[in-house]
């Protein structure tokens, strides 16, 4: 009860200062004491992050983010450009390791296991937490080899027939099988943008990850291809836990169960998607979803 009261008080407080928010640029608003509102944590967490700070050299990109991603949940992360949502996503399978100056602190756990444990091998981690990127990036190889690459390097199969099966089921689950089954050995780069992105999704699910991270997977696609990917995300959520970063609020509203709003490296609000888009708890979220900035 106290917490609710506190939240209400905060919201009231924000409503009082709404005029300021409207008149001044929200970026200039004082965020130093901002605390996440809503329901960032989950009882059935697949991944749980606490007090995550990310630094690029001297610059801090993420400030004390605490967030859970629930089992088989689709979590959308939205926010204006440069708010750190992609940075945060890339921490979840340690893709930021490749950037020398990037430093991550705090606790990031996958089923209770610390993923930033120096003893942990990133190779199996990335097999468990797969990633789909902003721009479709198929390998300059055949469609078959693109999908088969993951199972091959992880040694998941011993026989050709098994590999064929994995390739087929992965392409089917990515909704691409009927379009490419006659030309599996044609180059993957010859497909259309939307097909390439579904190929990348097939490639990711071919290693049966537990979590799929999607970094603006539709930003380079046309509306029809986008619709297909969104449909696919809904289907995939039956088997996978999905965290998706998106610039499109409509997309977040369509595909996700919960939505997290990031602002200037801070997690402002996490709530049921419906609530975020109809009745957000935080005035900054409201300002963003109503298009006052972004």
């Amino acid at each position, binding site marked *: 009860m106290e917490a609710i009261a506190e939240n209400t008080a905060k919201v009231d407080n924000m409503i009082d200062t709404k005029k300021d928010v409207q008149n001044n640029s929200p970026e200039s608003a004082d965020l130093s004491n901002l605390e996440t509102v809503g329901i960032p944590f989950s009882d059935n967490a697949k991944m749980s992050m606490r007090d995550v700070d990310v630094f690029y050299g001297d610059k801090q990109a993420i400030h004390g983010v605490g967030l859970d991603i629930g089992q088989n949940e689709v979590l959308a992360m939205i926010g204006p450009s440069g708010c750190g949502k992609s940075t945060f996503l890339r921490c979840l399978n340690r*893709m930021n390791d*490749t950037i020398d100056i990037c430093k991550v602190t705090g606790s990031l756990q996958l089923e209770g296991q610390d993923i930033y444990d120096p003893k942990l091998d990133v190779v199996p981690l*990335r097999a468990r937490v797969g990633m789909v990127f902003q721009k479709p990036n198929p390998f300059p190889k055949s469609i078959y080899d693109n999908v088969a690459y993951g199972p091959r390097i992880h040694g998941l199969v011993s026989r050709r027939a098994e590999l064929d099966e994995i390739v087929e089921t992965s392409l089917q689950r990515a909704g691409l099988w009927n379009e490419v089954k006659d030309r599996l050995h044609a180059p993957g*780069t010859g497909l259309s943008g939307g097909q390439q992105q579904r190929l990348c999704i097939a*490639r990711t699910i071919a290693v049966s990850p537990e979590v799929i991270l999607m970094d603006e997977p539709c930003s380079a696609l046309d509306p029809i291809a986008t619709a297909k990917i969104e449909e696919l995300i809904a289907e995939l959520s039956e088997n996978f836990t999905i965290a998706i970063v998106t610039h499109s609020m409509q997309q977040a509203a369509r595909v996700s169960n919960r939505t997290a709003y990031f602002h200037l490296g801070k997690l402002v609000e996490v709530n049921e998607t419906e609530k975020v888009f109809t009745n957000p708890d935080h005035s900054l979220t409201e300002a963003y979803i109503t298009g006052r900035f972004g």
Partner: protein
Amino acid sequence: MASAPENQKTIELVNQNLAKRYRAEKRFRAYGIASIGFGLLCLLFLFTDIIGKGHTAFLTTYVKLNVELSTDALDIYDVNDPQQIAGADYQGVLKKALRERFPEVTGRRDKRALYGIVSSGAGFEIRTLIEQQPELLNTTLDLWVLADDDYDTYYKSRSSDEGAYTGRFNEKQISWIETLIADGAVEKRLNTTFFNAGDSREPEQAGIRGAIMGSLFTLLVTLALSFPIGVASAVYLEEYAKKNKFTDFIEVNINNLAAVPSIIFGLLGLAIFINFFEMPRSIPLVGGFVLTLMTLPTIIISSRAAIKAVPPSIREAAMGIGASKMQVILHHVLPLAMPGMLTGAIIGMAQALGETAPLLMIGMVAFIVDVPGSISDPSTVLPVQIFLWSDSPERAFVEKTSAAIMVLLGFLIIMNTLAVWLRKRLERRW
């Protein structure tokens, strides 16, 4: 309404300046065309000069003589006895044939001059003939034998605008050759010696095979060492090395090494490989080591550029499904960077093929007659052969020098074409 005249004015101003702008544009293009034209002109001049001087070397003069291959004259009684075959006096039967062809020549000095019509190596041709067709023994037949270089030069220059080059010839020598020409007993044939023989003091017997083989062995050693070392260094520096002062220092040094005069590498090779490790002089192995040192910076720099050009999205894709660093490099980065690295390597090899100075320092400038058969046989290389011939006093070496340059240029053109072809072939689009 007030703005209308003003707009008019802006357009007028723009139009006024337009002509000037077009002229500047045209001038700018003309500078480029002029530069390319100048370059092409130089190239044309070079090619015309070299081909003009060198094309004659691909033909050589032969003289027809009526030779009696008698057992007594040759001293061969058993064709199966290698000693007799080896010791036979082949040159003698040629001399006899010449004496019979010009019976009026009597003086000892004149006779010596007469014998000079045929090459001192012509006897070997007869030996080969006897070895291949022993049944010709004790027959008399018309044989075409290699002429001496002075007569070769004379015959080739006879029809030129400047007139025949007589050089050291006296009247008699000219009359002999003219007699032979009038008889139709002189003709130009394809110069197989040039491609099949090693170096010689006699221009008509000198060939570039030794130099070609030497270059080949040297380049093989260079390629076998510099490509793997260069690619491995580039991969480490690009993919693994942390960015710090030390790697910056290495980078600056590699760039510096690429600009170090090649003779320094020759001195280094002399000091290390020959003086310290006491390796033999003049061998392609040491030449290859020296050229490896010289080519490495080129290969490392081009390989690093090629690796850098691999799109990061491909690396991310591979890492995103859990490929290890090595798998990312071996499966994705290297195949995509390969055209660039190969181009760099071939350009480095072409550079090494044309390199002379460092090889002078390690003794590959020696006069070597035998065609080398391995990387440890003394040999010379094409550019050094060109250097040696251009220094020789015999006039016939002028055309040989130009011909050797043509061969070298031919190899360079082939290698550079190969580089372009490989790039086109292996390049994948993404």
